[in-house]
């Protein structure tokens, strides 16, 4: 029975590790949260199953593991490490995002800018915790609350932290309904939370077509590092809004984004091999990520209150929290928090404005880091 014995050696028997067992358990928790709690299932289920795939104990050299060049997982993982899965996901997101709410009330864009403060303060915090500069930038972007942006920036600046950063980003995005409400309540008075905002006016088709073109040139002209993300986001949006390329937009927002989501989730999950993932750095990243989300939420809310000091038409500061992006969960959270005080107050329409602006904002922030750090090295 030597044959059987040798055979068992290459599997769990010969490579057992408690780290892998822990990661298998975490994978199951991710799947459970996705299915039973309905937290971002399109992300948590693939990532969770990917964790299982990446943490089956096995001998290396079998051309199976995601870090073994030539294996199927390694090949599919290249879309992550080379950064084009995130770009294609942004293409699909652009083709499904309606910027009308934002275009109708442009001043709300500033809330989406304010919330990105979380990114840069976490960057500083990461430096304080001893991370290298590039790593700190990649960790900071967790505060952007945008999975594809975080993965893209990590792939360019800190590939060795990609798994930890992606897992942290998606975890906190899934936990938005838990994290944000207490912070919002802490920073606002009941009177503020009761503010009703005027229903905004419709936006003409012409503006919706011009917007992606102009916004792309502005963003990319100033922060060219954002081209690989915003180029695709605004391209997808133009396909959607042009009215003559609906066929392409439909494919971009259905089979194309679905395919990439499946592969991205699976590969990101599979990259969390215990020996690479269960490290002190991952713990620090998790802590910094949580901090990042809180700071971003607070920054958005506080900035809304500041804006109210200078304008006549008051903004309900709750919607500042939607500036973190995490589309559309964080806009839902705003609606929920507002409705607790006044069930007839429909904030979600207004919250979509900072919400989508936050996506642009974090892509610009990623562009800033890329311009700074890729050039140097």
């Amino acid at each position, binding site marked *: *029975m*030597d*044959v*059987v014995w040798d*055979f068992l050696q290459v599997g769990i028997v010969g490579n057992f590790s408690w780290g892998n067992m822990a990661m298998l358990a975490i994978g199951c928790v991710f799947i459970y949260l996705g299915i039973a709690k*309905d937290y*971002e*299932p*399109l*992300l948590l289920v693939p990532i969770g199953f990917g964790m299982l795939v990446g943490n089956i104990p096995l001998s290396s050299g079998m051309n199976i593991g995601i870090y073994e060049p030539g294996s199927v997982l390694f090949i599919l993982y290249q879309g992550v490490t080379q950064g084009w899965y995130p770009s294609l996901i942004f293409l*699909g*997101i652009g083709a*499904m*995002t*309606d910027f*009308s*709410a934002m275009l*109708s009330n442009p001043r709300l864009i500033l809330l989406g800018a304010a919330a990105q403060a979380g990114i840069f303060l976490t960057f500083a915090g990461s430096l304080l915790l001893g991370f290298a500069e590039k790593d700190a930038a990649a960790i900071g972007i967790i505060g952007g609350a945008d999975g594809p942006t975080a993965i893209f920036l990590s792939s360019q600046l800190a590939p060795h932290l990609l798994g930890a950063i992606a897992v942290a980003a998606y975890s906190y995005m899934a936990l938005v309904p838990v994290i944000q409400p207490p912070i919002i309540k802490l920073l606002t008075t009941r009177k503020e939370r009761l503010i009703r905002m005027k*229903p*905004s*006016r*419709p*936006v003409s*088709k012409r503006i919706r077509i011009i917007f992606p073109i102009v916004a792309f040139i502005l963003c990319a002209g100033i922060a060219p590092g954002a081209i690989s993300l915003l180029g695709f986001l605004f391209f997808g949006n133009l396909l*959607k809004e042009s009215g003559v390329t*609906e066929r392409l*937009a439909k494919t971009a*927002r259905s089979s194309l*984004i679905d395919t990439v*989501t499946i592969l991205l989730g699976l590969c990101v999950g599979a990259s969390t091999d215990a020996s690479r993932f269960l490290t002190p750095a991952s713990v620090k990243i998790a802590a910094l990520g949580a901090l990042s989300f809180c700071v971003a939420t607070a920054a958005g809310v506080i900035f809304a209150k500041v804006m109210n000091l200078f304008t006549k038409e008051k903004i309900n500061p709750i919607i500042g929290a939607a500036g973190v992006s995490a*589309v*559309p*969960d964080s*806009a*839902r959270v705003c*609606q*929920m928090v507002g*409705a607790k005080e006044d069930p*007839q107050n*429909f904030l*979600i*329409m*207004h*919250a*979509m404005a900072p919400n*989508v602006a936050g996506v642009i904002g974090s892509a610009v922030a990623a562009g800033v880091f890329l311009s700074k750090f890729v050039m140097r090295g």
Partner: protein
Amino acid sequence: MEGRISEEMAALTWAGIGIVFAVLALIAFVISVIKRLDDRWQAAEAKADAKAVLKPATIDETTLVLISAAAAVAVGGRFRVRRIRRLLSPKTKRTPWSAQGRLILQGSHAPSRQRDLR
């Protein structure tokens, strides 16, 4: 016959059959165990369900809010949502990307474009 089978390969032939058998038998066994557990869970749940005779909500809260909001904008006054019937499949309800699309759309003010995101 030009070839021959080394001892190792002969062992592999039998071991292979055995291993495939063992793995599938293990799966069969584990499924049986889980099924027995599941039967108990289901029985327990059935009991619990029997108590809760309340008709379940057929639509989630966010959607209800959105419909109310849309109606509020359209009617411009006070009103009450009496009954909601779902026209699309309930499956779409849970997918964030499409939900995002839907939410954003509904947050927008171009109802005639809703078709786009279907």
